């Protein structure tokens, strides 16, 4: 409770710094991640991150002071080198891009582990916090680190905002951009530079292994909520910031388990976990593109189709007798998937009713059945006349589309087939007899 209070009132100067730093990092990574993802360079970002580890070590060897800024500059230099190497290798024939990226990730990380071990063994070398770069140590962030991240993020967001038109064109259609004379190669390098800046700024907080998650996850989640790149950039920035805030807050509040001593919960992994949760929520719950929305749409469609099949079956049973109000039994309709559940639903919808003689269409049910059958037959006629589909095949083909025909299309069909709005065309194929049993209810 006390921890909560301290957090929400931002009493603790250190917490303030860490929250600010990680949040701003989340924004920058979210924004750049959108472009990197659309350009399919997200994994190149991972390679850059892993290349940062040997970069840190080399800087440590070269300058020996373990000063934070120096180490990060080393990370940036080797990271850029890796990015340039990958884009050069991409141009070599018969070299697959994913293989190049995987080689870079593994190779640089291996080199980094070896070098950091050598650094630790160096006489007088304090452990230099090199391990901190592997998994990140957000809790040890100090004010100057946060300001560095803020400055980097400001530059990154500014560049993306100013060059959004150019980056969008680059990501969507590179050939067209080249044709217009845009310096595509330079834009590409600039984008990789932005990725490098974000990765290096994120190293101290989340480490080389996890920083790619901050690039990839908010952008991937944002795609579910919008199909406009402008909105997507904002949503990704927002999701990145929320992940960072919540993850950092949780790591500050949770009481440290005894085994970890005073070190507490690791911030980076918690931030990434929150981001992954947000992604899962987006995947499931986003309107329109989310899985739940899709399932609901498919389910609603199936229900509508089943109901329409029922009405059409009844109509075609009763059509010959000329009395749509006659009684029938569901058993007599077994030509299609007509089961009790569908009949019950039709009853609930006021389309059918039951009396002593069996089931009957209500007035509304008759009107609806007429509409459904009409759509089906118009569509069948159109298929036969204009799409050269044989009459004995047309029933099934018509089935697949008629349920989604909008009124405007039906009107067009009427016009083309010269059918009056009130007439019911005859079925162009024999209507199959019902399954054994009494045709109509007694």
């Amino acid at each position: 409770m006390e921890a909560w209070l301290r957090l929400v009132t931002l009493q603790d100067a250190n917490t303030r710094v860490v929250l600010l730093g990680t949040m701003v990092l989340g924004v920058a990574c979210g924004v750049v991640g959108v472009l990197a993802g659309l350009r399919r360079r997200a994994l190149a970002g991972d390679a850059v991150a892993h290349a940062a580890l040997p970069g840190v070590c080399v800087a440590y060897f070269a300058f020996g002071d373990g000063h934070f800024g120096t180490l990060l500059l080393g990370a940036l230099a080797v990271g850029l080198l890796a990015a340039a190497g990958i884009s050069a290798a991409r141009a070599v024939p018969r070299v697959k891009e994913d293989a190049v990226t995987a080689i870079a990730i593994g190779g640089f990380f291996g080199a980094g582990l070896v070098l950091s071990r050598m650094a630790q063994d160096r006489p007088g070398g304090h452990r230099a916090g090199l391990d901190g770069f592997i998994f990140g140590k957000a809790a040890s962030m100090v004010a100057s680190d946060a300001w560095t991240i803020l400055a980097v993020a400001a530059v990154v967001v500014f560049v993306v905002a100013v060059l959004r038109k150019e980056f969008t064109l680059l990501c969507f259609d590179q050939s067209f951009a080249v044709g217009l004379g845009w310096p595509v190669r330079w834009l590409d390098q600039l984008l990789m530079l932005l990725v490098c800046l974000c990765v290096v700024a994120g190293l101290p907080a989340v480490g080389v292994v996890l920083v790619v998650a901050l690039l990839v996850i908010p952008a991937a989640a944002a795609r579910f909520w919008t199909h406009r790149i402008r909105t997507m950039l904002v949503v990704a920035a927002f999701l990145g910031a929320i992940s960072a805030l919540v993850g950092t807050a949780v790591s500050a509040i949770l009481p440290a388990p005894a085994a970890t001593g005073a070190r507490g919960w690791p911030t980076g992994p918690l931030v990434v976990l929150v981001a992954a949760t947000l992604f899962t929520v987006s995947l499931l719950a986003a309107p329109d593109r989310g899985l739940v929305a899709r399932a609901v749409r498919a389910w609603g469609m199936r229900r509508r189709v089943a109901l329409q099949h029922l009405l059409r079956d009844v109509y075609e049973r009763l059509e010959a007798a000329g009395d749509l109000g006659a009684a029938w039994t569901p058993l007599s309709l077994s030509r299609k998937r007509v089961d009790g559940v569908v009949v019950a639903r039709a009853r609930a919808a006021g389309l059918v009713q039951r009396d002593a003689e069996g089931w009957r269409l209500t007035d509304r049910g008759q009107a609806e059945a007429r509409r459904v059958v009409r759509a089906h037959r118009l569509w069948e006629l159109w298929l036969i006349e204009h799409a050269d589909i044989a009459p004995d095949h047309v029933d099934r083909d018509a089935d697949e589309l008629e349920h989604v025909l909008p009124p405007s299309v039906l009107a067009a069909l009427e016009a083309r087939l010269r059918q009056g709005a009130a007439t019911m065309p005859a079925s162009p194929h024999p209507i199959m007899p019902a399954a054994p049993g009494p045709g109509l209810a007694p």
Partner: protein
Amino acid sequence: MSTDATPADPVSMEVHDLTVAYQRRPVLWDVDVSLPTGQLIAIVGPNGAGKSTLLRAALGLVPLASGHVRLFGKPLAQVRDRVGYVPQRESVDWDFPVDALDVVLMGRSGRLGWIRRPGRADRELAMTCLEQVGMSALARRQIGQLSGGQQQRVFLARALAQQADLYLMDEPFAGVDAATERSIVDVLHQLRTQGRTVIAVHHDLQTVRSYFDHVVLLNMRLVAAGPVDRVFTPENLRRTYGGRLTVLDQVAEAVRRGPEP
């Protein structure tokens, strides 16, 4: 810049001694051809004949092993604003988060230059271009929700928004529905009326005569080039497609139909 600025360049595209190779395997050999202005020009040839490569070479999208391409008598860099491009539809990711109008506005980016965003005039022009291809009602539709033919029309509208004098189109009729095909033909005729030039890779021999004025027959080497009624002959088609049995029927059919009335 605009069509009437330079009244008569007799030659829209001049290809001189062009050789293009992918990984040392040549796809175009010593191609020499001059194409007129103000006409609809088809590039015809079998698969792998280097038809698309010829367009891509003209746009500087592939490195040239030798030779050069001049547009309106100048190197590409000096006339970029006068050249519009319609790439193959499959060349981009249609799930990209932009709508049809955004794509058409990309056609303005060459004129806009760095940083500047499209303004109201650009938007109006883009809408006019969408109108021309019958797509203005779907301007705000995400491009992934468009049918293949509609996507092709969006690409065409984007090229129109470039307000170019020469349009290079890579298989604009590939896999489109009848409505789209009609719409594209209308646009081509409008462009010709305005004195603009269209060079299109075309794969359907049946329609070459009715859609195009001028034809380039290509099979790694230049087989023939010239006005359709003179060059699009059985003999030249046989030389272009020689030995490729699958297309012989198509060739025979095209020849049988002869010149359009």
